[in-house]
Every structure is written in structure tokens, then in C-alpha cells.
């Protein structure tokens, strides 16, 4: 564990009391279909997927390689388009939004944590974290304050001016989490968020995400192979051959 990083539990203790639980549905997908057609090859990735996630829930999507986990996450988050069915995020059908509006929606309501390439190498940690705020028109001073606050939440405020190349794997992923949370998103999407970390650091990151989930009542949807993540989540969605086979 990084010396600078506090544990997720400690963060949770330092934070304000948890928000009350809610039964509000934040993600509602039904009959989602996605096919990749190159003209020569046709791959059906999602076959009528139906899924509901409540606000504040932490959900793991698991299954064998190629079952459509990442495709589902990309479609749910609006990164990718769907060929059939519908997806509502807080009641908004992303597939009906033009690209710019969809991007603004993502910037305002969502945070992302990926396995690789999370941070832009030419920006410092704090500049990376404030980027989603600046591109949505937040004033630079306010954005910087919020970015530093987010870095503080994940325990690496003193590394704010360092570039990603100067951070450890765990610190980079903490900075990524800070970026995912800085805009106060309703949903945080994670695609193998600990896949590139050693087990000790991975545990720390998991604790941190869980702590933030509990503290802020933010929805986390994580695609993973890691059973430890599944064990930590409220629910596991099992997928196979493009279908949800258990939730």
C-alpha cells in the first residue's frame, strides 16, 4: 500500500454519515441487443439483455471472456450504441441523444475507471482530475478546488502536481477514481478497475470504491473477473453468450 494512501475504511470513518438507502431505479435496460457487423463477420454480442440497477447499488458484472460484459457496460454508459431495446439512465434514453448531448450527459452524471490508459500522460494528477469539470464549463479556480478535494478523498492530494509517469499503479488508479468522482456522478462505471494492480493495491482500491459507494450513495457498476470484487458488491450479474443468466 502507498504510504500516502489511507485505507478505504479510514476514509469512510472520516467522512460524513452515509446517506439513507433508496429503491429508486437509476439504470433500466430491457431487450438490449448489440451486433458487430463488418460485412464479412457478424458477431452478436448482446441478446436481449434486461437489467435494473438501483441508486447507490454496487453491482458486479461477471462472466467468461467474450460473454458481452464490457459491451454491456459500454452500451449502458452510452459509450457505444445499441441495435435494439432501450436503456434509460435516470429516465433518459441515451440512444436518442445526439453525440454532444450524450457526451455532456456522461460528463455530468457518470464517472469512468478503466483498467489501462486512465490518465492523460501530459497532464498532472490534479489537471487530469479537473479535466471533466473544465470541459463542461466549470471555472478553472472552482475546478481546481474540487479536483484537489477529490484527490484528498482518495488520499493522494500531496501528489497532485505529479504526472502519471511519476505515480505508482495504485496512485494512478486512485487519481482515476478521483477523476471519476470529481463531478459528483450518479453512476461510476468500472471495467476491470483492479485488473492491472497487484493484489494488495487492488484490495486498497476495492475498499476505497466500496467506502465511497457507501459514503456517497453513488451507484457503481463494475465489470470484473475478480471474485473478490463480486464478494464486495451488493449484487453480481452473471452473463453468458450475450445474455444475463443470473442477477
Amino acid at each position, binding site marked *: 500500500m502507498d504510504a500516502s494512501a489511507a485505507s478505504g475504511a479510514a476514509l469512510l470513518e472520516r467522512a460524513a454519515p452515509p446517506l439513507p438507502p433508496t429503491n429508486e431505479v437509476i439504470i433500466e435496460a430491457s431487450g438490449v441487443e448489440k451486433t458487430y457487423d463488418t460485412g464479412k463477420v457478424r458477431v452478436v454480442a448482446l441478446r436481449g439483455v434486461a437489467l435494473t440497477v438501483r441508486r447507490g447499488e454496487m453491482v458486479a458484472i461477471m462472466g467468461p471472456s467474450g460473454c458481452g460484459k464490457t459491451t454491456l457496460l459500454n452500451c449502458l454508459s452510452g459509450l457505444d450504441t445499441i441495435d435494439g431495446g432501450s436503456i434509460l439512465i435516470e429516465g433518459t434514453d441515451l440512444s436518442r441523444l445526439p453525440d454532444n448531448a450524450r457526451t455532456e450527459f456522461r460528463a455530468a452524471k457518470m464517472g*469512468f475507471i478503466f483498467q489501462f*490508459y486512465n490518465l*492523460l500522460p501530459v497532464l498532472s494528477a490534479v489537471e487530469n482530475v479537473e479535466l471533466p469539470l473544465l470541459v463542461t464549463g466549470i471555472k478553472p479556480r472552482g475546478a481546481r478546488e474540487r479536483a484537489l478535494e477529490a484527490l484528498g478523498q482518495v488520499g493522494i492530494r500531496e501528489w497532485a502536481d505529479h504526472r502519471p509517469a511519476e505515480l505508482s499503479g495504485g496512485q494512478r488508479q486512485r487519481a482515476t477514481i478521483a477523476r471519476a468522482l470529481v463531478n459528483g456522478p450518479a453512476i461510476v462505471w468500472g471495467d476491470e478497475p483492479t485488473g492491472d494492480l497487484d493484489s494488495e493495491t487492488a484490495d486498497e482500491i476495492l475498499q476505497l470504491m466500496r467506502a465511497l459507494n457507501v459514503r456517497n450513495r453513488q451507484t457503481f457498476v463494475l465489470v470484473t473477473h475478480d471474485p473478490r470484487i463480486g464478494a464486495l458488491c451488493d449484487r453480481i450479474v452473471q452473463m453468458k453468450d450475450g445474455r444475463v443468466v443470473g442477477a
Partner: protein
Amino acid sequence: MKVIFGIPTGSIMVVLLVVFALCLALSALLFLRNRAVFRLGVRNVPRRPAQTILIVVGLMLSTLIIAASFATGDTLDSSIRGQVLDVYGQTDEQVVAGSSGTAYQGGARLPETLVADLESRFRGNPDVEGLLPVLAESLPVVDQRTRLFEPALTATGLDPARLGPFGPLADTGGKAVNLGALPADGVVLGKTAAEKLNASVGDTLLVYVQNQPHPLTVAAIGADSLLTGYTGASSAGGFALPLGTAQTLLGAPGQITRVDVTNRGGVQQSPAVMQALEAALAGTPYQAVDAQANELRTAEETGNAFLTIFLLFGLFSIAVGILLIFLIFVLLAAERKPEMGIARAVGMKRRHLTEMFLAEGLAYDLVSALVGAALGVLVAFAMAGFMARIFGQAFPIRPTVTWQSLVIAYTLGVVVTFVSIVISAWRVSRLNIVTAIRDTPDPVPVRESRRWLIFGALGVALGALLVWVGATTGQEFPFATGMCAVPLSLAVLLRRFGVPARLVFTVAAFLVLFYFLMPSTWSGTLFPHLTAGIEMFFLSGILLVAAATVIIVWNATLLTFLVGVLGRASARWLPAVKIAVAYPLERKGRTGMTISMFSLIVFSLVVMAAINDNVMRRVVGTGDVSAGWDVMAVQGQANPITDFSATLVAHGVDTGQIAATSRLQVVPWQATQVLQAGGATTGQYQVVGIDRAFIDNSRLPLQTRATGYDSDAAVWGRCWVTRTWP
């Protein structure tokens, strides 16, 4: 240099400065609107220093070529103009015999009294400063000391009393020489003539008139100018002597060959003086010629002609530079694809990515254009050094670059690069977020988007319009552009309807190739008569290369197949070769751009070689050009030879070695006027009079014959019919 491709350079500069300012204003606006994105772009510049240097070098190439072209044009313009100014000095106009409107001085004489008449007419004219009667004749000269001979030096008789406004004759040291105070046999020998004769002050020159030698003494060696018989690059120069002495020498008392005129306001006053001279000479057998202005125009046209050729290759380099910019940005985008995907995922719009690349590109652009312009001038000056070695004997090369050329080169470089960056940045911003994050190839759509339908329809409409414009105006450039735009746009349009890309693009590209490569007899039958200029080299080069590249890229699977078949013979190398072929085929766009770049370079080199070969054949000549003749002897008017063979025999030449001799009389084009039946002037041609021996002994096949002539002999026979001119 004032005109490029028919457009004044001043206008080009103003337009470029406005566009340049707009580019900078747009960049400033982007910076102010979203500094984070701008910073993100600029931070990429020092990310990989070696890569940055390569990019700057790549981007500066087009600016370098443009700057070098302009500086070379300036140098040629300045050198040729400089020589005109040196030669003509204070002489602005000339009054000569004839009425053809040109400065023909082929021996026609004028009465010296004409000068006094003109002086009385122009007394009080504020524009005319002086009139100088001149008697000039080409004569053979031998330097007795060095025994060197020059067959045609120009003896120039000048009136010392009227020489003042034309500037004193000066020796090579700049010291004034008083022509009126020379000894009776003294002459001022021009610098070039002195070099050819290796003459020194005090040498005796034997000047032949009517085949009789007349001794003259070199009193001084003066600078080359009209006053010392020097008329330009091809001139052997001559010597100046008092008018009276010249008239006595040439047996032409009271006669002159021209009147030189000098203006108070220099050559700028030529239009006003010409108007006054034409009024004064109306109804006489004499005419005024704006000699210096005319030569300056010719100098300018020559400079522009060279500049046009250089710029033609500059255009190729711009095209290659644009491809290079696209390639650089595509590669940069490919390298940063996952980062860009993440940036889009967390809230950056396509516009932000475009702005990010624009900021980065602008930083490269401003620096590279500056470096390119500076290096371009250096390259041009180096070229001037080479030119001085080649043409230095003809006229001195003066390396020159004007601030206007520098501004045009720099702003053109910046603007071209900026526009290329905008388009390439827009292109790379349209990435698929998911494939970008995963760094996997983008999916190939079965059919293209509606945007392609719009582009295709617009392309077809624009192409049809260009065809119509070309056919209406008789210009091949718009016609050919339209003829190629239509099939290519149709291919784009058909893609929207799901027609396979390989099929439509291959057919369209073959149609473009067919248009340019079809036999001229076919195009003459199929299309209206069209005129074309040097710009067609560029257009055809671009479109031929583009079409061939499209065919190669979309049919590259055939290449893989062929590699597989041919590779069976050497199975050990097959895997390596297959992999080597597979990588370029995986990225059609990049491979196509790379092929196009190399092809354009090769195409421009071939064009340059072809032009060079043609010019060399025209200038230096081949066996065909000399029509089989080996020796040419030039006869001066002052020393006529009535029987050439007898003269050779009389001088001890063994004429048994000579198979044939013939006689030609050349009338310079300046002295001719071609009139249509209605009296309108249609042009001027050099006229060559030939004798029967020339026809009988020349190897001169005719390229085309008029209807009714079955053979070359029939044509020559018709020429030989004795006729009486009206």
C-alpha cells in the same frame, strides 16, 4: 515579380495575410474559450522531442520549397532586371527606322538631321532630358597585339556634345572618359569585348569595313552598356567612338542608326514620352520604341516564367506536404488513441479533440513555417551560386529576396499547414470511443453515413458544373477536374447504398486513369477542343497518383495472393514477406497516403526531367535541330561576301572537305509583322530566307503538311516558285 499564375503578388499577399490573421484569431479564440484543451494540446509538443523535430522538419518542407521558389524568382528577376538597367543606363526610349513597333536596329539608317528636328520639337518638354544620335554597326575586329579575333563587335558612334545627359562614359575603374577628347583613332572598348580580345589600353585594333582593315587604338576600357556596343547576354560587346569618326569609318556621313532618348523621371516617364514621340513621328518613316521599359517587361516575364516552373514543383511539394501532415496526425492520433478514447469518455467532445490537435498543430506550424521560410531562402541562395556558375558568363546572378516573397512564403506555409491540420484534426476526432479505449481497429461500416450521400451528391453537382465551365470556356483545367470529380463522387454516393467499396472505388479510379491516359485522338473525338497550361502537369499528377493509389489500396488482396503464389518458390522467406505485406494492408489509409507521397515525388521528378530534356533539346540542340549542317559562318553587313566558297579558297581553305554550302538570310522577328487579310496584326515571326542548296542538302523532315502536298519535296517545291509580292 508581380504576377503568379495570372494573379498579382500584392493581391496574393493581402489575401494570405487576411487568412493568416483569421487562423491566428481562431487559435486565440480557442485558447480563450477553453484553456485546458489548448494546454492539453500544447503539452504534447515536448512530449517526444525527437518526434517533434521530425514533425517540424516534415511540416516545413512545403514552406521551404515555396520560399526557395519565390527567392529564386526574385533572384532571377533582380539579376535580369539588373542587367537591363546596366545595359540601358540612362537610355529610356529609342527612335529607329521602320514602323513595326519594335527596336530593330538591323542597319537601317536615319538622317542625322532628325536629331535637331526632334530637339526643336522637344525643347521645353519637362520629361525629355536629352537626345543622342547613335550610329551602330557590327564589325569584325582583330587585336594586333594578342592576335585574337572577334567577328562581330558593335562599333557605336556617339555625339560627344550630346552625351552629357546619358551619363559620362567611364572606364572600369569608374573614372570618366571624355569621348570628345580622344585621339583621332581612339576608341573606348567595352569590358566584354576587351575580355574576348584580351585587349589592354594602348592596343591597336584592326577593324574591317568593306573587307578593308582600319587601325584604331584602345584609349580606355569602359563598362558594358549600349554606349559601348553591349546589348545583352548574347552580345560580344563593342566599342564607342565619336560619331564623326564612326560616320567616316563606315562611309555614312550625316547618317545614324538610331536616336537614344533619356527621360528626366527615368523609365517611369516612358508612357508620357512615348506618347509625345509618337505624335512627333506621326507620318514619318521613323518610330519610337520604349526600349528600356520593354526590356524590363521581358525581364519580368522571364523571371515569372522561371518562378512558374519552380512553383509548379512547389505545388507538388505542397501536395506531398499536405499528405505528410495528414499522415503525421493520423499517426499521432493512432499513438494516442486510447488516451483520446478516455478523454471522450470522461466528457471531452469531438470539438475538444479537434481543438486539442489544432493547438498542438499550430505550435508545430508557426515554428516549422518560420524555419522553412529561412531555409528556403538559404536554399535559393545556394541555387543562385550554382546558377552563377552556369549563367554567370551571360549575366551576373544577384541573390535577392523581397520581403513580399518572404511574407507570401511564410503565410502560405502557415495557412496550408493550418488548413491541413484542421481537416486532419477533425478527421481523427471522429473516433469510436470503445475501439479507441481498447486500441482495436474501428469497425468497417457496411454502408456509409448520410454525410457521404451529401458529399457525393455535392461532388457530382460540382463536377458537372466544372465540366460545363471547362467546355464553355475551352479550359482543360476545370474540365478535367470535373471529369474526374464526377466518377469519384458517384463512388462516394453509391457507398451510401451499400455498393461494395472495392468495386465502386476501383471502377471510379480506372475511369480517372482512362481520362488522362486515353490516346489524344480519342479525347479529340470525345471532348471539345480545350487549351491547357503548365498547371495541367500538377492536376494530372495529383489525379493520376490518387487514382492509381486507390486501385492499389482497394485491390491489395491481389498483392497478398500474388506474394503467396510467387513465394512458394522460396518458402523460407514467405512468412517474412507475407507479414511485411500484411501490415501495410491492415491500414489502407496510411498505406495509401504513403504510396501517394512517394508517387507524387517520383511524378514531379519525372516531369522535371521531361521538361529539362525538352528545354535542353531546344536550347542545346540535337543533330535534328542543325538539319545536318556542321558549321555556321555569320556575315556582317559591313563586310559582305559575295561568293563564300571562292573566299574560302582565296584564304587557303581546302574546300574539298566541304560537302555543301548554302546561304540563309535571317530577318529577326522584331522586324516582322504578320497581318491577317483584314489588316489585323496577329503576331511576329522570324523569317529565314534560304537558297536552293539549303533545301537540297538539309535533313529537315516536316512534321505536318497541308492538304494537297503528298511529300516534303512537294512542299519545298511550292516554296521555290518565284513570286511577286504585292
